[in-house]
């Protein structure tokens, strides 16, 4: 560290826990180590704690990290950085017991435009990719990207496929896709750099509903193979 980042320079703890600035709008806390559900449970716990602090507007989990937005940016940054680092050290895992939603997926075909790229990268058949993809129960780590979108944990690394070099301008809502070691389902049409391998019908977000998002951190998704189109 060359001390350019004012937070890291002032932080009393070692920069093993990465705390960095997002302007005067927010802080980003990045948990050290490999991505895991155990770490994510501590992130959920840290989010609950941080949201009780008066200067914090929202504490929003990402994938093994936490975004903390300010109501008013604190005058003394070092104090809150110290507080966040300390809260992380004592954060005990919060085992959210959510519900499991089953999503029937048609793999490949028109709704899975990039299946061929995943086949080419992994050397597996579309049927094998569907089997591997539909095997786990995926915990929802976090919401983000767009309204109702869930970041899921637990994808089998055998079907990990790098993000696309050029993002696709529009993938439809319900698109099931793989980006690196992660998988997810688009909640509405939009641009994406991920590889779409299938599609599902589900309304993930309705602003008129309370809560507006179908799923929350701690819930789970199980994909069921409704068909594989070659």
């Amino acid at each position, binding site marked *: 560290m060359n001390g350019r980042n004012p937070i890291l320079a002032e932080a009393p703890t070692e920069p093993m826990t990465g705390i960095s600035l997002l302007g*005067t709008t927010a802080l980003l806390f990045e948990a050290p180590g490999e991505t895991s559900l155990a770490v994510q449970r501590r992130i959920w716990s840290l989010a609950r704690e941080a949201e009780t602090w008066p200067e914090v507007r929202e504490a929003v989990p990402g994938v093994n990290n936490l975004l903390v937005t300010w109501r008013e940016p604190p005058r003394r940054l070092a104090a809150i950085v110290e507080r966040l680092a300390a809260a992380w050290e004592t954060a005990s895992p919060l085992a959210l017991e959510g519900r499991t939603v089953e999503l029937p997926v048609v793999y490949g075909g028109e709704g899975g435009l990039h299946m061929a790229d995943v086949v080419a990268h992994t050397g597996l058949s579309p049927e094998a990719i569907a089997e591997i993809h539909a095997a786990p129960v995926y915990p929802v780590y976090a919401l983000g990207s767009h*309204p109702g*979108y869930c*970041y899921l944990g637990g994808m089998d690394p055998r079907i990990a496929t790098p993000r696309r070099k050029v993002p696709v301008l529009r993938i439809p809502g319900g698109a099931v896709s793989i980006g690196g070691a992660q998988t997810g389902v688009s909640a509405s049409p939009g641009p994406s750099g991920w590889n779409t391998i299938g599609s599902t019908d589900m309304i993930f977000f309705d602003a008129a509903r309370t809560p507006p998002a179908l799923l929350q951190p701690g819930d789970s998704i199980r994909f069921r193979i409704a068909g594989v189109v070659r």
Partner: protein
Amino acid sequence: MIRLLACGALATVQDRGRLGALRWGVGTAGAMDAPALAAGNLLVGNADEAAGIEVQVLPLEIRFEAAAAFAVTGADCTATLDGVLVLPWTAARARAGATLRLDRPAAFRAWGARSYLCVAGGIDVPMVLGSRATQLRGAIGGLEGRALRAGDALPVGRAAEGPPPGTGLVPPAIALPRAVDGVPALRVLPAAEYDRYTTDSLAAFWGEPWRITPQSDRYGFRLAGPTLVPLRPLELRSHGIVPGVIQVPHGGQPIIQMCDAQPSGGYPKIGTVIEADLWRLAQAPIGSRIRFVETGWDEALAARDALDGWLAAARRDLSCLSPRSAA
């Protein structure tokens, strides 16, 4: 009610943004030039949370179905009410049936990229998750979650009495100018991956001007300039981001996330344009150039205070002129 008679692309209903819905994956949206919207609301006696119309492509033509006070702020444009010129950043009044038209400015060098129309009472579309701001992705807020078009009728809320017609404000572009070599200078706080770029890349980042490419909109500004090279390839886990974050995709050309940006991402972040300078960026037209200037936490807060101070002074001055100032 006001009715849109003519409307360029991508005009939307915006307020100061949807705060507190990141947990559902919902970004802030809101006016790209927040001070311009705030000033417009002050000029017509509106509450801070009132919504106005953000205009990106001129012309815009509306008819007032009922008499109303209004103000046009933000980017330079030629505003006429029934053919008579209207001063920008100034309270004005329209009779029922009057037509207001915003046209491309005649000036050779016009400032800005986004104009704002505020009407006394505010554009009274339903609140969605605490805000009237339009977010196109997910079709949330505004008028049916979409851009406005000719023929649309927009409800207007109950007006409070504002400052008298002819009352004006000095725009922040004049009150708080900031440029280096004639190019808008945006203050940037280094972000998490700042130290992961080559010395040459960092020197270029601060030292060279950046051009705003045509692939720039409310979602983000894609910049063209020197290629930024990381010391080694970076792969990050998805994490929350905010408007102003400067991401560097693998191609090495930065993207500044703006108001409609998705609330999370995975590209490396070299820095963040501070909140107090986002309006300057919002008003930088496609094809124009900007520069980045390094700043620190205390300086960034001072910049925020200066902008808040400008708004507070405007509020104070206008309240002296408003009939309800006794309150």
